[in-house]
């Protein structure tokens, strides 16, 4: 095979000589990262996708052949549909609460002066150092029938309440775990903000609130957007929190996948649910990204 000369003119003479001398350099240089990505992400994903099309025999537990039956049964079964809906409802709520709490938190953080700023940044990041499982256990002890919260409710004469194994608890715990993932991107985009821009708004007579809404918020929207995507994605595929705080009844998609793999041993079904979660997640996130970012691309570049 003979090499063909590219018919489009290179952008600059400099690039031209580079391309002539090392035509394969970009490939070589990106190869390690590409291989790692393929080995760790694409191959397992591909195998999971393959698995989801296999037939499953309950008697022998063997998998073989090709079928769409798992997808069909997930998509038509009310049980699964409800779990998917619940997962996205919980994730959306957790994301919304993270925005409501995390954005002001990041703003206040960025307005602090230095010793305090470092201390509070550490306070916000510290939970990341503790395993999610440990934190979930913490919540279950706190909210359990014999936990301090119920003890306090009893003391005030309100009476014991069932706090564990409710959607509310799962959302609260998710917000707790996900908050740093909202605060950090928002904080980063606040760092890039010229403080004079807010001062400018004030100098033209804007109140502090108006300045934040009209001038600061639109500029940190990209940060809020990426924070939301991270929080939503992680929440929708969260496993430990719903597993430990949602109990047997209140399942989310990731816990169902786990059950299919390890309790029912129906691996193809688990794989199909996982694949559908991935697709649904992608659709939700891309739509959101389109809606918000498309609106602001020209302005903020």
């Amino acid at each position, binding site marked *: 095979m003979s090499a063909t000369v590219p018919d489009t003119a290179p952008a600059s003479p400099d690039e031209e000589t580079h391309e002539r001398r090392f035509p394969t350099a970009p490939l070589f240089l990106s190869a390690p990262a590409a291989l790692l990505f393929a080995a760790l992400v694409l191959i397992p994903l591909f195998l999971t996708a393959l698995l989801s099309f296999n037939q499953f025999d309950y008697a022998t537990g063997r998998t073989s052949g090709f079928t769409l039956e798992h997808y069909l049964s997930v998509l038509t079964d009310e049980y699964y549909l409800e779990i998917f809906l619940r997962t996205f409802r919980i994730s959306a709520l957790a994301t919304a609460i993270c925005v409501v709490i995390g954005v002001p938190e990041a703003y206040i953080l960025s307005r602090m002066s230095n010793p305090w700023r470092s201390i509070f940044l550490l306070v916000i990041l510290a939970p990341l150092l503790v395993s999610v499982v440990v934190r979930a256990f913490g919540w279950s002890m706190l909210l359990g029938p014999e936990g301090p919260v119920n003890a306090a409710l009893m003391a005030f004469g309100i009476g014991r309440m069932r706090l564990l194994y409710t959607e509310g608890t799962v959302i609260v715990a998710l917000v707790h775990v996900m908050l740093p993932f909202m605060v950090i991107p928002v904080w980063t985009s606040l760092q890039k903000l010229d403080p004079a*821009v807010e001062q400018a708004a004030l100098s033209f*007579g804007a109140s502090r609130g108006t300045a934040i809404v009209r001038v600061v918020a639109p500029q940190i929207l990209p940060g809020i957007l990426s924070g939301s995507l991270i929080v939503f994605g992680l929440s929708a595929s969260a496993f430990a929190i719903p597993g430990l705080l949602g109990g047997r009844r209140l399942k989310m998609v990731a816990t169902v996948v786990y059950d299919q793999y390890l309790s029912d041993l129906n691996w193809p079904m688990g794989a199909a649910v996982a694949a559908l979660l991935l697709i649904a997640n992608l659709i939700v996130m891309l739509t959101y990204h389109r809606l918000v970012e498309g609106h602001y691309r020209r302005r903020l570049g």
Partner: protein
Amino acid sequence: MSFLELKNITKRYGPLTAVGDVSLSVEKGEFVSLLGPSGCGKTTTLQMIAGFVEPSAGTIRLDGRDITRAKANSRGLGIVFQSYALFPHMTVFDNVSFGLEMQRVPKGERKPRVEEALSLVHLSPYAKRYPRELSGGQRQRVALARALVIRPPVLLLDEPLSNLDAKLREAMQFELREIQRKVGTTTVMVTHDQAEAFSISDRVVVMEAGRITQIDQPYRIYEHPETEFISRFVGKTNLLPGKVVTATGAGATVSLAGIAVPVEAAGLSVGETVTLCIRPEKLHLTVPADGLLTGRVADRFFLGSQWLYHIDGPLGTLMVVTANDGSTPAEPGATVGLEWSPSVVRVHRGAMAEAPDVALEVTG
């Protein structure tokens, strides 16, 4: 009574006095510049007028009203920030319109006023662009239009031209002054560039380490700098240490390394140590016999409209600037005479400071 009045304004940051005891009166319609080296407290002063920094002491009055503790968003001043601080997510039109919106100007009235402001700065065709789609000079003009559209009593400019390249900066200097004349807004500008301050201000306020050292018209500051620091900071100067040998009423004779030089300065006493300042363009090259002293051309630099010579002589190396009038310049190595008129020599009492930054500490 003056329109904008700062009285004994002081700002301390812990042990550091960023601005110390600054008093300044600005008349209505006047263009005043705060000039000084970086870190001397110019921005801090401006921010106290704007209301972003609260003075530790002193009062600020605007049109007779005490605004020292008034909130920034209640002062109604027009501010152009050094970084321009345009709203990046708004079009040029919306940027300019923002201040009017905050003043609750009805929508129908806003549009003509924004258009008027944009045409004042020659940006009418760019109303629909976003700031990042504009050049530096255009952004600067949006910032100016945005500040002027609200018809502020005072316009505050913080190094408005420092982010522009030399050519554009010069053009904008004149444009800025022209616009200011047209709208007649009282203006306070901060700059570290003496050429900028001189070319467009009615009066220049020289600041040094947080204090005002001279307030005067631009040419007076150049010709009659009150401190040695100012004569060094403002343009080039030759500083010569000497001793007073005779003093007669309005004049005196100063001995510079044994050479007697007449000066016009009252109140000197015999034996006093003084420093003479002579601007390089006030020295004239002559044939050796005609000069007050002679020297050798050590070096010469071509500056386009001028020649800059370094002349080695009995007083050390002196700078001399002559106009490039087309005549043949002196050759390096040639012996020349130097002469000057006694009236161009400025006398500062006391010994010469070693370096400009030392002067800054001594006088500050």
